[in-house]
């Protein structure tokens, strides 16, 4: 092997790399927040809406889950631009990510809602809770707690997949690394550095979710167990 590795050529661009990582985390944060909120709404609609609403949401989920994100983003971002709707690359990218992650979140949360036994709901009613209280305290909160690990994995995957949006020009970590490759011709080293940085970022996102679960789920905090 005669290849001389030269990581210093890549690492001298560390401010650029950090800036990219920051953009990646910002994109992931907003898509996670918006995708989670919309995913929960879609899950409620899909499990207890009218038949028409259920079908519409079901169709949306199936279309998104059976086509690749890259095609969805091209369709959305280039499509909207072609009919004259201009928006920043960042906004378009986050919109595409939200539309994508909502479908996955919807399915995960729906599975959680459906896993709550009927008897729990009836017990809640017997205690004299209002329908809204029953839905919030007896169905939705425990459902979310139960699917929390699956949601965590899904949102870590979301953080990783933001790299794909560099194809439409975002300056996230992956997008910005293209510039470094062009400046240094050290493509392989760039990818190794990216690998390490993404590993750290996945660990970071996982840690954030673990921390959030300690704060959000009172039962877990007090008893140390999930449902």
């Amino acid at each position: 092997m005669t290849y001389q590795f030269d990581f210093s050529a890549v690492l001298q661009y560390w401010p650029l790399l950090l800036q990219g990582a920051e953009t990646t985390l910002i994109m992931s944060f907003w898509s996670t927040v918006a995708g989670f909120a919309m995913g929960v709404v879609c899950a409620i609609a899909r499990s207890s809406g009218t038949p028409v609403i259920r079908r519409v949401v079901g169709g949306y989920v199936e279309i998104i889950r059976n086509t690749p994100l890259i095609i969805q983003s091209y369709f959305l971002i280039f499509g909207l631009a072609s009919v004259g709707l201009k928006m920043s690359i960042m906004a378009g990218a986050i919109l595409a990510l939200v539309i994508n992650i909502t479908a996955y979140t919807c399915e995960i949360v729906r599975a959680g809602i459906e896993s709550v036994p009927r008897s729990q709901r009836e017990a809640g009613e017997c205690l004299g809770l209002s329908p809204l209280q029953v839905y919030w305290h007896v169905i939705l909160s425990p459902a979310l707690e139960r699917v929390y690990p699956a949601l965590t994995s899904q949102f870590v995957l979301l953080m990783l997949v933001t790299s794909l949006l560099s194809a439409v020009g975002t300056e996230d970590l992956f997008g910005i690394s293209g510039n470094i490759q062009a400046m240094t011709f050290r493509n392989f080293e760039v990818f190794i550095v990216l690998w390490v940085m993404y590993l750290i970022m996945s660990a970071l996102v996982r840690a954030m979710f673990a921390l959030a679960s300690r704060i959000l789920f009172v039962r877990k905090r007090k008893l140390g167990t999930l449902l």
Partner: protein
Amino acid sequence: MNNDQILYLLQGAWGTVELSVLTFVFSAALGLAIALMRVSASQTLRGCAFGYINLIQGTPLLVIMGVCFYGPSILGFTETSPMFAAVLALTVHAAAFLGEIWRGCIESVPKNQWEAAECLGLNRIQRMFKVILPQALRIATPPTVGFMVQIVKNTSFASLVIGFAELSYNAKILNNSTFKPFLYFGVAAALYFVICYPLSWVSLKLERKLTVARDQG
């Protein structure tokens, strides 16, 4: 859209199917090895498999694509075809996920099956291949078919770093020269859907069948 363009998209779809099939075959072999390592008695093997899975699942597929595209030439393989690099990256990636899925399936076979096989005097390899794996296979089929959808969608990553001419790459080329994004990406999405939806559907049906069988059993 004229005939040539339709043909071009269909050629892309064929590239997608080729990549998917090759990836599935190779990642199934590697994934099984990973799953077996994960449940092995040796702590070293378990640790290696665990490390591999974390290394792969913690980084984007695009980064793995880059390493698989530029890496082989550094090791001295002078001609890395896009096809080779794409299949390599997709295989390495999918095997980590399949390994985890299958580990779960192997572990969900009841423990008394292991003990019964041991009582029959079967050795460890016989127990695994004659008793546990055939039962795990049944549990593993629905999620595996479901994961095939993931593999098909992931092949679209090969259009970026590597530039392999599959469906999304060809759709992008057509759009770049004609500027009709809704048309070309719409048709491409429909083609992906035609490939993926039957797999999702079969996976769901198999899962329901398994749940019914389990409830009755």
